[in-house]
């Protein structure tokens, strides 16, 4: 379990930093904050943090001077500095006392995340297994977390999920976006590596399978409810996709 120390002279920012990342998820169970130089040194010696994040200015003191002091005490801590200044001298001084990274305020969440993950893997010999997993929302067809897809693709996927039972096509989607359908189809293909029509068919099949397995609805009404008014066509597609007929699937279960 890791220990984290955050030093800044503004309490609001300390609170913000505590919430910027889901520290718990990364294994940080002890998070201490301090607002003065003396407090920071005392806390560091007391808890010996794995990672310490310093603002470049703590009241009248400079963050990297405190780090220098702590370095003399030979604490095994990895330091990160955050600063509103992007001036070269500060960054240079920070690098010189062995700081892992120099983050600019306001802090970019993804950058902080990258730095922390890097320190965990490289310096604390930890691993990132089990992180992201629990709350990750993965698309059942693509196998990609929604977060990693663009907002545009997410929006299109959302439209499919909402309207798959109706007569939705790439053309109708593109019309709503007032875009050339080929163009939009290419954007979709490039990001998902799947054609829009393939995705729609796969999603409909998935829904049909779900209903076949969980309800006693008639196959024809299921076909209709997932957007196949033509039953024969539904059968052909189903057979092609799963390698068995809908009734076989139901019997099997």
């Amino acid at each position, binding site marked *: 379990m890791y220990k984290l120390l955050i030093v800044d002279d503004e309490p609001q920012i300390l609170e913000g930093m505590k*919430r910027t990342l889901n520290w718990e998820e990364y294994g940080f169970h002890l998070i201490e904050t301090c607002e003065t130089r003396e407090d920071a040194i005392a806390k560091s010696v007391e808890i010996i943090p794995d990672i310490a994040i310093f603002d470049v200015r703590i009241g009248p003191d400079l963050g990297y001077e405190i780090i220098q002091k702590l370095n003399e005490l030979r604490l095994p801590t990895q330091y990160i500095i955050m600063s*509103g200044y992007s001036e070269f001298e500060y960054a240079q001084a920070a690098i010189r006392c062995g700081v892992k990274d120099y983050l600019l*305020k*306001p*802090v970019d969440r993804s950058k902080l995340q990258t730095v922390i993950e890097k320190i965990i893997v490289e310096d604390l010999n930890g691993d990132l297994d089990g992180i992201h997993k629990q709350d990750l929302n993965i698309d059942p067809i693509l196998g990609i977390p929604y977060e990693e897809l663009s*907002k545009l693709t997410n929006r299109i996927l959302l439209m499919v999920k909402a309207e798959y039972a109706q007569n939705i096509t790439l053309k109708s989607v*593109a019309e709503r976006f*007032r875009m050339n359908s080929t163009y939009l189809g290419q954007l979709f293909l490039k990001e998902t590596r799947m054609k829009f029509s393939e995705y729609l068919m796969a999603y409909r099949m998935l829904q049909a399978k779900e209903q076949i397995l969980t309800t006693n609805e008639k196959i024809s009404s299921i076909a209709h409810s997932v957007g196949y008014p033509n039953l024969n066509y539904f059968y052909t597609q189903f057979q092609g996709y799963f390698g068995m007929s809908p009734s076989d699937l139901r019997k099997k279960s």
Partner: protein
Amino acid sequence: MGSFWQIKIYRNKFIAYTVFVVAIGLVLGLMTCAVLIYQWIEGARNEAVSAFGRVESELQYDTDRIEAYMQRIYSNDRLMTDVRYFLGNTAEGYLTSRLEYSLYNEPLVSFPEDMRAFLYSSMKGDLTQVSLHTENGANLVRFSNSGNVSFRFGVPNTDEIFREKLEKGFVYRKKLSDPNQISRQIGEFRFLIGSEPLFRKILGYKLDIAAAVSGTGEVYMITGMDHGTQEMILRAAEETRNSGFSSLGGLKNVFFMNFHSTKFDYRLIMLVDLSHLMREKAGILATIVGSVLLAMISVLMLISYNMRDDARFLKHIINSIKRVKTADFTPNSPARYRRNEYGMIARELDDMVHELDKHIRTEYLLKLKQQETEMKALQHQINPHFLYNTLESIRSTALLHKDVDTADAIATLGSLYRDIVHKDNIITIGEELELLQKFLSIMELKYPGRFYYQIDVEDPLLAISTVKFWMQPLAENFFVHGFNPSSEFNLLVVNGWEEEERFVLEFVDNGKSIPEARLEEVRRCLYSREDAPVRSIGLRNVYTRLSFFYGDAFRMEIENNEEAGVKITVIISKG
């Protein structure tokens, strides 16, 4: 000295001058030499003519003397008598006859003695032998160099001594007739005029090579035995001309002269050996060549001195232009300008540079500095640390309220602002796209659920350098003119790809289209390079800056999409 050599027009000029001067020098030198040689040969010819004249006049004189002596014989009975005793007689016979018929009251006349006294002495030693012939033989009188007389009697006509040879001299024949009966020939005199004493008289003339050639081709060398050969004389004798230059069939280059005698069957041939002549006059020729060379060198020196002066000014002008081209306007006037057109141009150029510099300083640099100061003042008013710290505080507050989107947007805004202020003016397209992306993600927050964007640019484009901050104005254009707040599907797509000859960046939106008439106007304003006021200042500004940066390699197109919205295409040619 060599300074003008680096300037092409002067180099060519100098080469032309050099060729011209050398040619003139050569022609002058050669002509002088030719005139001199001609004069020398003319001198030699005069000398030869007078030498030949001397020989001819000597011969004339000698024959005149012989004729006169013949008259004397005919007019003097006793002498005639003595001659007749001498004719065909033996020595004893002659002496006996003389004594037998001598008269006491008259002095004893002796033909040989008489001849010595009158003829030999008057011919100044030219006479070497006199013979009196009958049909079978002859009696002869010989005169030695010192004038002593010797006799030979009864020598046959075929004897070697009577062979006519140029080596011995010229034979002058006179018939001896019976004084009582003129038609009866009783004998023949042969007077031998010796070559040696005859030609010795012309040794005092300045002759290079001289020889007499008889009709039968015998050669008698007079002078020039030392370096000449009989061969040369014979070759010259074959020439049909009387005088001229000849190589004598490859032997030697000479000037030859051919004189035909009117008295005797011989020719006098005189040669001037040209190489010998050259050797003799080498000093004079060397002086001429030396002075021509000296003259050529001094003319060339004068020319190059003049050119160096001109070139210095031309160089000054070229350097001034070079400096101005690299935006170096520091004054660089020489202490003194030449008082000619070059000087005028140089001075005007320096004045121009000076004025330009002044203009730039007042109009441009000053204003720039002013703006810079204003910027600095503005920056100092808002302490960046204060600004970024405040943004961080606001971000933290948002997080406390569990508003992650706002927190992220604030972080993006801070970083966007920082990039705009701190990044260099020249960045890569990758960095510029990052700026755009930050801007668009803030816009996404501003219009949640109503605005989507997608950036899809191929890697090769990311490293291309570009000017900062031109994509955001294009995007802003969309938000100002094309954005439809009531639509759920506002979309902006940036595509970039590499083609064989060029890179293409495409900004496609699905907002309002531009009316065709307006589109024409926008295009016209964009491509005309005037500073006409355009409604979409942003587009115009972007176009101008990219044009400045990429030059002719850059092109921008604007058009309506078929479905909706506008497509702006930026094309950067490779190479």
